[in-house]
């Protein structure tokens, strides 16, 4: 029997409110979270949420009765199929609250293809849209919430496929080449594809390069390029399928390097040696060379030169014997020690340490003062 009371009360209340509204009775919202109060000329009703249950009180008799909770309905729309990189609009217009309260909308990602960086635009609006950037299945979640914290969720699945019938050119390559000049690298266009027909033509071109003598051996899908100068090379590929459709031109950059010289660092100490009348300083400088990448350009020799503060030019460079260079295979750091005597006390000295080629080209250098 007790169950009948809330049902009956709810029906009475609903009917009363409906009747009251029909009769022009004032409906007063007292606050958003807990209480809604309805008034007629004779009777005042109050719907109170307490512990997830709703009770109805009315005046003058204030006995409370419990009624059923009515949840909002979320509707994200039907699942859709879409083209890649085309706008897909989503709508929550099918969502509603049976109790008539306003809904707070939030669209969120449930899943999307790996590598996709697509975003939901207007994610707090009733209508939103996405622009898929990868082929695959995207799932978007919709959450609706009322001001009194009743909520509901739904999802919509978007299947994204490639709607472009033109062939696609794809270049695979080394990205970075490190070797002695001249160097040959190969670019592969065999991952290029087309939905209809076959790819019948590969058009390779050098878009940009350092001033260099370039030899190209075009084998269709693959191309071998021989260059004699380090730098950035940009190569383009356009493919054509048997239907006569051409792809968009794709570009690929190859960084060609003949190696990175080591980074030089150092630390030194200075000590005064005194005789009765003469005083001189001696300096010991530990020099460390560290390669920052596996692509190494090894100097043929190291030299250093010295000058005192105020002197404009360095003195005659001295060569560091390779016997004095210690290499640590574990750390990849090489080091040597410079000892210079007869420095004038109180005078700052500058040391220039450089790694050079046999031809005297400076590959790396470091200036330090002590």
């Amino acid at each position: 029997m007790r169950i009948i009371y809330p049902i009956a009360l709810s029906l009475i209340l609903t009917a009363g409110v409906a009747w009251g509204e029909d009769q022009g009775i004032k409906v007063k919202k007292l606050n958003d979270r807990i209480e809604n109060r309805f008034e007629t000329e004779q009777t005042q009703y109050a719907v109170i949420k307490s512990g997830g249950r709703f009770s109805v009180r009315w005046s003058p008799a204030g006995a409370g009765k419990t009624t059923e909770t009515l949840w909002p309905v979320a509707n994200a729309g039907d699942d859709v199929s879409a083209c890649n990189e085309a706008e897909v609009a989503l709508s929550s217009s099918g969502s509603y609250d049976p109790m008539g309260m306003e809904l707070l909308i939030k669209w969120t990602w449930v899943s999307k293809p790996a590598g996709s960086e697509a975003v939901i635009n207007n994610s707090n609006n009733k209508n939103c849209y996405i622009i898929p950037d990868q082929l695959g299945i995207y799932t978007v979640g919709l959450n609706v919430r009322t001001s009194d914290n009743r909520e509901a969720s739904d999802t919509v699945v978007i299947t994204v496929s490639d709607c472009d019938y033109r062939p696609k050119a794809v270049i695979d390559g080394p990205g970075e080449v490190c070797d002695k000049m001249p160097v040959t690298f190969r670019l592969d266009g065999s991952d290029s594809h087309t939905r209809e027909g076959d790819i019948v033509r590969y058009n390779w071109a050098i878009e940009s390069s350092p001033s260099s003598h370039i030899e190209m051996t075009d084998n269709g899908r693959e191309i071998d390029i021989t260059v004699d100068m380090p730098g950035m090379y940009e190569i383009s590929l356009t493919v054509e399928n048997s239907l006569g459709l051409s792809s968009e031109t794709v570009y690929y950059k190859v960084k060609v390097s003949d190696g990175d010289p080591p980074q030089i660092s150092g630390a030194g100490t200075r000590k005064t040696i005194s005789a009765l009348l003469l005083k001189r300083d001696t300096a010991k400088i530990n020099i460390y060379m560290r390669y920052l990448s596996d692509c190494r350009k090894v100097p043929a020799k190291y030299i250093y030169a010295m000058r005192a503060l105020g002197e404009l030019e360095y003195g005659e460079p001295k060569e560091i014997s390779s016997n004095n260079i210690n290499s640590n295979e574990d750390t990849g750091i090489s080091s040597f020690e410079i000892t210079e005597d007869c420095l004038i006390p109180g005078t700052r000295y500058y040391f220039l340490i450089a790694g050079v080629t046999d031809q005297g080209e400076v590959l790396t250098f470091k200036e330090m003062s002590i």
Partner: protein
Amino acid sequence: MTKFKVFLIIMLITAAASWADTRPRVNISAGWSGALRLDKEVKQYYSPFMMAPQGRLEIRLLHGITIYGAAQYSQEKGTTIPAFLYETKLQTICTDYGIGYQFKWKNLSIMPHGGYSIMYLRESAFGAKENRTAQGFHAGIKINLYLGRNSYFLMNANYTDAKLQTDIDRLNVGGFRFQVGLGTHIRLFESPYSVE
């Protein structure tokens, strides 16, 4: 010293000797000198005891009053601080100028004396050379033992306080010196009228 000053000194000596009607003597001697350094810091660089050849020129004026000039040359090796990193070489010419009075007996004369010392120092180290001068007063006593009419054996002991100004402080590069040597007289203005 200018030629004029030398000339003036000679004239003064001549005038004084003529006035005294005595026989001025020039005593020339040479020998060996040993120097004992006292300054702790100097001893860190060079040996506390050093030996060197020395020469001496004395001019006895009237009675026992004597002016003298002496010089010694030394050359020694030392080390730097920190020790033994480098070898250093110090060349020193020590000149003494002074006056004394000879108390003379038959075969012996004793002369207390004092004067001014100028030390010329040249140090070589690290491939560089540095010349400096130290100056100061000295005082001592000299004994001549006569071996004959014109020759004698000399022993001289003196203390020299020669200060060398460095960047940090003043060092005493002098010390005690002991000299031995042989000498001879050169008699000037000898005449039948001279009175010994």
